């Protein structure tokens, strides 16, 4: 199997890669935390979380804190495994050249 196949197209974007990085080391992150850390706009972040949710890399939970709606995200097992594969592929690519 070639290395290239392990490079995940879905992670080929700064924001999506960022979301996964944060969720790898945090049990949960809510929308605002992601927004602040990544410096993304609401719409931009929402479209990227949707993409990751659709491929079941992240889990989205909507809840209420008091009266305020709060959306929190966590990485799924699949998402974590795919992210690890992606990182390993990146490292191999860098080492090779």
């Amino acid at each position, binding site marked *: 199997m070639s290395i290239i196949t392990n490079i995940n197209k879905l992670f*080929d974007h*700064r924001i999506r*890669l*960022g979301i996964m*990085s*944060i969720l*790898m*080391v*945090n049990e949960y*992150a809510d929308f605002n*935390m992601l927004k602040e*850390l*990544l410096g993304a706009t609401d719409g931009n972040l929402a479209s990227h979380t949707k993409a990751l949710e659709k491929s079941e890399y992240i889990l989205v939970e909507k809840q209420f804190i008091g009266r305020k709606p709060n959306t929190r995200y966590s990485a799924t097992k699949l998402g974590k495994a795919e992210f690890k594969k992606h*990182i390993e592929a*990146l*490292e191999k*690519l*860098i080492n090779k*050249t």
Partner: protein
Amino acid sequence: MSNEDYLKDISEIKNLMNKSSRFISLSGLSGVLAGIYALIGAAIAYWLVINYSGGTLYIFHGWVFWTCMAVLLMVALLSAVTGIMLTTRKAKKNNEKIWDNSSKRLLFNFLIPLVVGGIYCMIILNQGRYGQTGGLMLIFYGLALVSASKYSIGDIKYLGYIQIILGLIASYSPGYGFWLWVIGFGIMHIVYGAWMHFKYDVK
């Protein structure tokens, strides 16, 4: 994508992982000051015991004992207040929130061993085993630092290891407990705080 882009990706990943899970605005200077408070406190306690408690460091009685306890409490309180103030200042400078998930997690993981150790020390004191408290304080403080290091600057764990080792020595030979306490809480804090200050704060 070129090689450089991949490298940039990796460093961005590392940066985000650190920023989202660690609170890094701890002030090195507060460590130095905490060490100085500890040394002053130890000097006061030493002077009291030498002059009013028959010259031995382990036989406490009456008001000398309670004054030493009060001094100890003052040292802890002053260190905590100084630490919080200087860290708040540094967090503001770094544009980092002082009370967010990462600092909450840091505090929580630091306080569990520390509070347990504090209660245990009080139980031991209550049983009159004064000689053991110096070592126990060092051990539990060291454990608190090691546990906190995962949520802050990783270097903190080395200070933790040193405190644990000093604490174990102090437990084995309580006669040196006082001096090991002085080294651990006084001198090591100053050395370590200065090192952190020059490594992270001065640029």
